[in-house]
């Protein structure tokens, strides 16, 4: 299994933000995307997840292999933790939610409604959802927001276990998760805006000074 991104350019709001992104991930590999705010991490992840079309270039992955966890957790406030997880399990055609509960220690919260959870607990539930998808390529956008150190550790454990089982993980994060063999990719070098910015600056300099 392989996730291959070839010469990918992405647009956000009609403006080209990234161009020429290339990488390939095989089973058991993880890639951490880095770069300053606004560089296009979310845009790249959404493009790879298929939520928006690429401006140019290709994303090749096996069919139905990608699971995506964005900024929002996709939880229904009026449903319990159990119902939320069960819904996503049946949406992905899986049944067992126990591994997801174990991954994030969610068993004590099982019958609590999502609206009564703290921000961190909601995030844990949102991340645990990835386990019930049963998919092999996990895409996370800022997964550790509002997680404490202990739960960040649990998250890293979950990803590590997924990689050992032959999965692939693609993460955008600013913190160091302690994934030993994760490569990281700084998106600043693929920035499409920077160039046009530089050009206008140059023109301005040449003209005025």
């Amino acid at each position, binding site marked *: 299994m392989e996730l291959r991104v070839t010469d990918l350019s992405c647009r956000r709001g009609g403006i080209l933000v990234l161009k020429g992104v290339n990488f390939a991930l095989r089973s058991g590999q993880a890639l951490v995307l880095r770069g300053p705010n606004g560089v296009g991490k979310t845009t790249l992840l*959404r493009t790879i*997840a*298929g*939520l*928006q*079309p690429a401006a140019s270039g290709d994303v090749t992955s096996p069919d*139905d292999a*990608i*699971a*995506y*966890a*964005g*900024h*929002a*957790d*996709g*939880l*229904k*406030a*009026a*449903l319990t933790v159990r*119902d939320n997880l*069960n*819904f*996503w399990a*049946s*949406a*992905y*055609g899986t049944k067992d939610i126990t591994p997801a509960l174990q991954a994030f220690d969610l068993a004590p919260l099982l019958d609590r409604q999502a609206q009564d959870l703290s921000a961190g607990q909601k995030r844990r539930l949102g991340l645990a*959802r990835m386990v019930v*998808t049963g998919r092999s390529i996990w895409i996370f956008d800022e997964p550790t927001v509002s997680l404490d150190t202990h739960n960040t550790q649990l998250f890293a454990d979950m990803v590590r276990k997924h990689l050992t089982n032959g999965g692939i993980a693609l993460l955008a994060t600013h913190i160091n998760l302690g994934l030993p063999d994760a490569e990281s990719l700084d998106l600043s070098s693929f920035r499409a805006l920077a160039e046009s910015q530089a050009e206008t600056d140059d023109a301005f300099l040449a003209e005025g000074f």
Partner: protein
Amino acid sequence: MRALLRRDLALAVRAGGGFGLSLAFFLILVTLVPFGVGPQSELLGRIAPGILWVGALLACLLSLDRLFQLDWEDGSLDLLAVSPLPMEGVVATKALAHWLTTGLPLTIAAPLFGVLLNLPIPGYLWLFLSLLIGTPALSVIGSFGAALTVGLKRGGLLLSLLVLPLYVPTLIFGAEVVRRAVDGMTLLTSLAMLGGITMAAWALLPFAAAAAIRINLR
């Protein structure tokens, strides 16, 4: 798909789900009309089919803007788009859930509300049947409108403007069925048209709505 239907139904009947809102609105409208028109039972009986159909239609419209908006706000729409469920199926399922929580209760309650408007006796059966056949079209046309406006702040107004003209054929033929039944005329043509509109809407609009959502998610 069945899980999505179950979830939407569960959410609709839970607190804040909006179930009953349409029904209450329908009841209020139907109770207020006799006060506005005055106590002429003959006149009321004559306008009853139209009022009942307009009432059902507006009540249906009331909960439409939540159809995809809530899922969009909490991120579930993104996640559903990545999930193995086809977006067309998601749209159709959500439209069905909308019908089960608004259209169907309205259909069942309408004959009772007919009494308040002094609807003539022959009208009741056909009021029920015409709403049963016609309201599914309202839900699926509405889901198309909701798909176009998902992600817009205060999209409700735009949604109404988009959807109401599309509701007109259903309204015309639906009310016509009841009117003809009341007058004792043959009503099969209107009923066939009503059924035709519903089936065409269900066959085509989920695809259009799914395409609109995919564009709005970008």
